[in-house]
């Protein structure tokens, strides 16, 4: 079946709802273009899922939002955050990433204690007060639904935790920075179903305070947790709509075929 990749449906948001917006984002790995004209707007305090087959450009897109692709890919276009283009070379990327955090596909706790995993970056930011640090550790672990499991072992190595716990620690570590936006790159793909369910629960709670953008290859997951869904195909944004609409009434034939499992 032939699809026209020019057939698109992109939802537009109100100015004041936007937490993040991309304009004409084109991403290249050397000669090869991995994303074509990404124009997307993400709503504050919502979960937006990015779905699509592997190689569709969804992860590349996500990793460009806080410039984790720097040095790997060439990102052209603008990423608007609080009215400024954070894709500009003038931006202090280190400062920016404090507000736009990221959780990765594979859990990557530092080989330090659970406590230090969370406090390490905080201390670097000048928070030295022990009570304050302990308080942040507790709240972020609670938010990540890990507190009850580890509260007695905070000085144990983070590597002693199970994969699911490690991933929740990574989420706790990210939200301890009090970011605005949290980017999650298939955070549950390496985990078992029980851990996945726990992470999903955590995410639903987090959206009260954070804007979440999550890449997932699992369409059920996207439909369970997200408010908006973006469908990527071969580096093109094909459809962006409310999750409900995408899954029940897709506007584009390609989306419909992907969701019904006709390909990919």
């Amino acid at each position, binding site marked *: 079946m032939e699809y026209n990749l020019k057939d698109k449906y992109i939802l537009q948001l109100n100015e004041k709802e936007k937490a993040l917006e991309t304009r004409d984002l084109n991403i290249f790995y050397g000669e090869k273009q991995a994303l074509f004209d990404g124009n997307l707007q993400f709503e504050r305090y919502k979960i937006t899922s990015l779905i699509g087959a592997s190689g569709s450009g969804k992860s590349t897109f996500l990793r460009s939002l*806080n410039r*984790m692709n720097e*040095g790997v890919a060439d990102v052209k276009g603008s990423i608007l955050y609080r009215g400024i283009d954070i894709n500009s070379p003038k931006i202090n990327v*280190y*400062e*920016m*990433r*404090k507000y736009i*955090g*990221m*959780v*990765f596909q*594979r859990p*990557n*706790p*530092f*080989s*330090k204690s659970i406590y230090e995993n969370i406090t*390490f*970056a905080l201390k*670097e*930011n000048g928070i030295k007060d022990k009570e304050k640090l302990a308080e942040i550790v507790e709240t972020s672990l609670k938010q990540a639904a890990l507190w009850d499991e580890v509260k007695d072992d905070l000085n*144990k*190595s*983070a*590597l*002693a935790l199970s994969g699911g716990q490690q991933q929740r620690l*990574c989420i706790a*570590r*990210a939200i301890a*920075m009090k970011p605005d936006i949290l980017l999650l790159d298939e955070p549950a793909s390496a985990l078992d179903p029980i851990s996945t369910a726990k992470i999903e629960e955590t995410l639903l709670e987090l959206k009260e305070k954070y804007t979440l953008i999550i890449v997932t290859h699992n369409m059920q997951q996207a439909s369970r947790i997200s408010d908006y869904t973006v469908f990527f195909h071969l580096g093109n944004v094909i459809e962006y709509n409310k999750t409900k609409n995408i899954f029940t009434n897709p506007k584009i034939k390609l989306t419909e075929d992907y969701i019904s499992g006709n390909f990919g």
Partner: protein
Amino acid sequence: MKNTKFQNNVAMAIIKLIAAMVVLILVFLLGKILISGVPHISWKFLVTPSKAFTAGGGISVQIFNSFYLLILTLLISFPISLGAGIYLAKYAAKNKITSLIRMVIEILSSLPSVVVGLFVFLVCVVQMQIGFSILAGAIALTFFNLPLLTRNIEESIKAVPNLQLEGGLALGLSKWKTITKIILPEALPGIITGVILSAGRVFGEAAALIYTAGQSAPAVDFTNWNIFDETSPLNLMRPAETLAVHIWKINSEGIMPDANAISAGTSAVLIIAILIFNLSARYLGNYLYRKLTSAR
């Protein structure tokens, strides 16, 4: 068919024979060195200075010189190798300049050590007039050690998953902070193993030293620890023959009556020291690695 089977059996036998011979060569070498050398090792041998013309000399000064030179060499070469290793592992872009840098390091590592020694002789000993000295020796050994240590550190850093760097960066840490505080501690077991192994190589090196640290071991006063004093063992400007150079020197122009016994004893001491380096590198590396990952 029978022919190929026969051929196969002969070939297998030859391969096993060769492997056995290699083991025998090592056993023979170690045996020869230790059996002919160990009987000459005594406490007196280890703590007496060497004598040029008469029997009964020891190797105390040479032992001190070897270790002192090793420590100085590591003090100079480790920071540079660490910087270069971090650069190659985490900062270097994939381009022509990087491959040129790699090529240059490769070339440095394949230069004959006698050429490196002669260069330091030319520049430091003669032109800068610092004379045959521990300092010149340490510089020569540094040049000899830099490429190997750099490569080892680069590989140890690269063995730490890049996810760790990403984890740090995503928290708003600078790349430098993440590398020094998160990646280096994880790479430490590999780095330490590499440093000790390089120490073994440096310890046994002689060709780079004969015209830099010199071939004489003037007596030093082990009670004088003022680094600026000429008789102090710590003085950087005194000539300092090492164990390895001592062996060479005795064998090429030694005139003391017990030359053969002394070189056998010195060889045994040198080999034992290097065996200790090798074993401790293996042990310490494994130990640190287990400690670091014990939680897994």
